[in-house]
């Protein structure tokens, strides 16, 4: 395990230190001078790479930024969520709890669907902002907004209940920061099949099975082999 010995071959320029040092200093001086001039520009955002954050909020946040959540309302101001619980189910951090409530008569202007979330809580301390809830929501009701200032003083404030989520929606709407609707992702079209495969996207369609069907026997073979293997081994051990 002897370590290889490395020969150092330097050119004269490298050997005398100073040449490269002076070159480097020229480079840093260039940066200094550029930024020194930039410093005299008016306004908080002087040096192009730095935002003076709390004062200077001109930096554009991506419209699809995954920040603090809000619950969407439709055009008539009704809550869209149907409390199906998909978001709670898909959440890797298990930070969403939804309780379902049945819409009573006379509440049609409050809730869009027959069921609505009686309570909807998101624990921001657990949330990892992966955006799966948004992805999976059938009604596009829960959305991760553009709000990124998540610091709170107490733990209680970090739990977003339904009221806060709807307030977030109002705030986002007032500031024009509602998330644009997501473009649907084109999926590989289903191979032509005698049965109709349309709309089989959400249901367990037959289409992937076509791919699987060829593979399945392999797996089965493997399973049997495994079983045989263990038997073989048993036999071998018995012999021993």
């Amino acid at each position, binding site marked *: 395990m002897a370590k290889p010995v490395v020969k150092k071959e330097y050119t004269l320029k490298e050997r005398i230190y100073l040449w490269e040092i002076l070159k480097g200093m020229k480079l840093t001086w260039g940066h200094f001078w550029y930024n020194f001039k930039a410093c005299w520009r008016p306004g908080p955002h002087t040096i192009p790479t730095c935002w003076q954050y709390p004062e200077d909020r001109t930096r554009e946040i991506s419209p699809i930024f995954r920040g603090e959540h809000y619950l969407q309302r439709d055009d008539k101001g009704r809550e869209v969520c149907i409390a199906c619980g998909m978001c709670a189910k898909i959440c890797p951090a298990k930070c969403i709890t939804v309780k379902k409530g049945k819409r009573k008569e006379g509440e049609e202007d409050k809730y869009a669907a027959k069921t609505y979330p009686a309570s909807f809580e998101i624990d921001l301390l657990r949330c990892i902002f992966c955006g799966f809830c948004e992805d999976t929501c059938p009604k596009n009701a829960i959305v991760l907004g553009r709000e990124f200032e998540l610091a709170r003083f107490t733990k209680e404030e970090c739990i977003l209940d339904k009221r806060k989520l709807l307030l977030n929606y109002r705030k986002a709407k007032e500031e024009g920061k509602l998330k644009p609707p997501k473009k649907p992702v084109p999926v590989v079209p289903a191979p032509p099949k005698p049965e109709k495969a349309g709309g089989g996207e959400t249901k367990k369609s037959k289409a992937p099975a076509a791919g699987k069907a060829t593979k399945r026997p392999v797996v089965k*073979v493997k399973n049997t082999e*495994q079983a045989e293997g263990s038997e073989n*081994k048993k036999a071998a051990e018995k012999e021993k």
Partner: protein
Amino acid sequence: MDLKNRVEQCLGPENLVVAMAECQGDLSVEVPKRSILDVMRLLRDTPGLGFNFLSDVFGVDNLDLNKPKKRPKKKTEEGEGAEEAEETAEKESLPPRFEVIYLLLCLERNERLQVKVRVAEDDMEVDSLYSIWKASDWPEREAFDMYGIRFKGHPNLKRLLMWDDFPAYPLRKDYPLEGQGEERHLIYDD
């Protein structure tokens, strides 16, 4: 000649192949535990195979696969001899609980091979590959740490990720996800 035949040709005569399986193009070969070192040397040195790179070593716990039915885990239950006897009887008919999987790689032909040994719960000792590949140093320590599989001949077999006096083996299937309150065992001295 495809890889499967070559491996068979190499290991077959010595009666070293317990089973072979292929899943999506990944060939895995199960070999007897006691001859793992010989197998590895053969796989490395046989021309035409030349698996000269150890990619990874890790354990798998097959507890749930062996027992599809969920049963309450009563480890400290006393007295119920009948149930225990039943369990032991069942155990004997099942394949050994643990597996150690070695991922090998042939750098020349870019072929990969999974070598598998089964480790029974009552004899958790496998020969260490440290003498062949130094790369097995930490992965074997981790397998020991997580499953309690001991590697004979490893120069420094102690816990890697968990602290030294951690009382359990966390990646076993009967270890609860949220732990057993091992923090209690931490002794803070100033």
